[in-house]
């Protein structure tokens, strides 16, 4: 699975993207966020308030209860501030 990060999520994690092999029990977006948060200090800092994290799968917004695809691009980022 390809993961991409933006804005302060990217800065706290310390990278813009990475490839991960997910354990089989990680099946939803919420599972993914919890799993990532346990990967280290930067991840924990980025994801300390999971409810603020916005997620896109293959460049479309999804909710935290959305099932993960087998493969694809999952983006994690803060609430957007464009416009």
């Amino acid at each position, binding site marked *: 699975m390809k993961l991409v990060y933006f804005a302060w999520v990217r800065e706290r994690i310390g990278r813009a993207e990475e490839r991960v092999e997910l354990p089989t029990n990680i099946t939803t977006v919420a599972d993914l966020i919890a799993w990532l948060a346990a990967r280290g200090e930067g991840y924990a800092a980025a994801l300390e308030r999971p409810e603020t994290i916005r997620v896109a799968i293959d460049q479309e917004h999804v909710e935290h209860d959305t099932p993960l695809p087998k493969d694809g691009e999952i983006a994690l980022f803060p*609430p*957007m*501030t464009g416009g």
Partner: protein
Amino acid sequence: MNTPCIPTVRVQQEDFDLSEEVAALTAGRRDVGAVVSFAGLCRDENGRLTALELEHYPGMAEAEISRIAAEALGRWPLTGLTVIHRFGKILPGGNIVLVVASSEHRRAAFEAADFLMDFLKSKAPFWKKEHTVDGTATQWVTAKDSDEEDIKRWK
């Protein structure tokens, strides 16, 4: 009979020219009765900021703006729609975003432009970072709760 309107969506670093974009939606047409444009600019927050830096999600930014534009076209009978969003470092006074909506009658153009901006704010993957005059650490702009409230107006 109206021809279907195909929106123009651009995500770019370079500046845009409002009058050129308005002209592009009206040139050679006799059916356009209303053009509404909205330009969003970088302000210096009473002298506090030297610049805003806009990060975006390449690919999704274009895709999401196109989805919002398609939604607007489904709701209002527009004759033209252009949305441009810039990224990179933008100085106070510089352009950030442009929406131009045209239609036969004014209401559709006004409402569509308003709708586009509300959804761009909350759904288009852009993030603003402030650069301050006093050189203190740069800071990400926080999303406002009112942004989410704004999109509920359109349910």
